[in-house]
């Protein structure tokens, strides 16, 4: 069985770049933000809020976890919560933007090298 993370031949660092930042990073951020959100949810006293936010965090990947951490978390201090979300977005989106920029645009003429 081929690995999900196997590369096309010839392999290149650019393939690793896209697999990590476009494919794996969202899963990791989803898991990290959801885990932190549930840590905080566990400390809440209102059951309705726990269930509602819990569903939102799970069913709306990334957005749910980030929204909860930025707006509704109570036990974590504000600065670390913002830092976790913003740093995560930067780590994900900056390399992604550079990668998409590099991938975009015309491939150039059919000149031979």
């Amino acid at each position, binding site marked *: 069985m081929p690995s999900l993370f196997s590369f096309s031949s010839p392999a290149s660092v650019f393939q690793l770049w896209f697999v990590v930042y476009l494919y794996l990073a969202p899963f990791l951020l989803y898991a990290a933000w959801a885990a932190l959100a549930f840590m905080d949810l566990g400390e809440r006293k209102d059951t309705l809020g726990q269930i509602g936010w819990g569903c939102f965090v799970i069913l709306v990947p990334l957005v749910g976890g980030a929204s909860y951490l930025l707006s509704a978390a109570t036990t974590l201090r504000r600065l670390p919560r913002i830092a976790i979300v913003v740093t995560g977005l930067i780590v994900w989106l900056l390399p992604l933007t550079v990668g998409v920029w*590099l*991938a975009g645009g015309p*491939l150039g*003429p*059919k000149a031979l090298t």
Partner: protein
Amino acid sequence: MLQSARIGRSTRNLICALWLGLALSGCGKSEVKPTGTVLVAMADNSFSPAINHVPVGGSIVFTNEGRNDHNAIAVDKSFSTEKTFGRINMRPEDAAEIVFNKEGVYPFYCSFHATPDGKVGMVGVVVVGNVEYTPGGARGVLPPVETATGVTRRVPKDYPTIQNGVDAANPGDLVLIDKGEYVEAVFVTTPSITIRGVDRNEVILDGKFQLSTGIMVGANGVAIENMTARNFTLNGFYWTAVQGFRGSYLTAVNNGDYGIYAFGSTDGLFEHSYGSGSPDSSFYVGQCAPCRVVLDDVVGEYSGLGYSGTNSSGDMYILNSRFSHNLSGIGTSTFDIELVPPGRDTTIIGNIVNDSGFENEATGFFASETLAGTGIMLAGTNTNHVERNLVVRSRNNGILVVPLLDRHYWPATGNVIRGNTVLESGRADLAAGGLGTIGNCFSGNTFRTSLPWGLQALNGCSGARVPLASDLSVDMVFFGTLVQVRTTEVKIADYRDRPKPPPQANMPGGADAPVHPAVHVFAGLKLNLDAIQTPPFAAVQKPATEL
């Protein structure tokens, strides 16, 4: 008389908005005045539309929507996009407006992809004002015929060149070419003629890497048989915007774009033919719906793709053929730069596709390099049938189903991949990638690996299917390869020195074979798809030319 203006992207957006505004403002009105501006797209490599009518004082906006550099230059030099930009080439996304203040007919051409007489290659015409214009040859438009006249025009015995022979022929005639090397680019405007070589291997059109296309056909019902075209900078044999065509026992070697090529053409057949050493593809059928085109018993080698079909849809068949040692074997695709997207309804049965994407074998170009190493690729196309093919030794994926992102996002859906033997692929024998890749089914294939895992088990052609049937890592490595191609120097084998094929089989009957104009071609074929078997594995051990 003629003025030109450079148009930036924002200006073009404004033009589009204006067009939209004009279109909306015209709704409900009984009379709409012509705006006088026509948009002409420069695709790779044709103008669309090629024939344009504008009023006196009207204008043409040329936009380079291809991936190659282009230009538009009047044959009489009365206008040129070079004057707009101060350089000969218009780069992708460039646009230029030419204003026409004087009545007349203005043929034009792209100096990179056509001959300066405006007859062969990427050419077009602007008809300004109320001038009569009839496309066709010097004799105007001749009516096609369904039966042969029995007249044979011999080259060089009766006519010194092939062009002289086809110009003199009437519909239904046979132009018979004797053994020899002919250094000419032929343009056919007479319908229903048959152009035949007396010996496939010894009747050779040679472009000497100076001429663009061996034979370009712009008339309906033309058959070309039993000859070779080699060393042209663009295409070996090319039918454009015709109804009814046939290429039989043709060999196209080391041509700079396509080997055997039909564009915007319907009702045709390529059979018993060989193509190799073309950076884009050995065989290409594009922009047709419904195509009603069959490729049967052809061989494509050492090219970017063995067969390529962009926006070719409906009654499109690739049967009993072999595609070896190409960057990728068979590719169907959808692109916005050609008309009638998306591509759909291509049937691929009984073919051998082997040794795709291995280093220093095939020529190609940058775009084909990004998906190199695929046996059969369905890129942004729908409801195709891929059945009973033998796909062996693909550098990356054996059979790949992926969406394609051009100006629009084209998902790949509703494809049937059934009964194929797919082995020895470098990454996965069966693979599906991308968002929206749903509704495809895999059944009865012999394979060892798939991406995602369980692709066939969970997405059979009968019963319930799992909705998540694609793996995004396929796309990620594609994007990575795209960046690799764009940012680093890619070594691509030169089409001019790809391997020469051994002598190819001559047409039965040779010069004396019956003459059949290429009319009602598809209707005359008796396709029995059920009788086609999966080629045996041992077949890939033999050279393609021995099959």
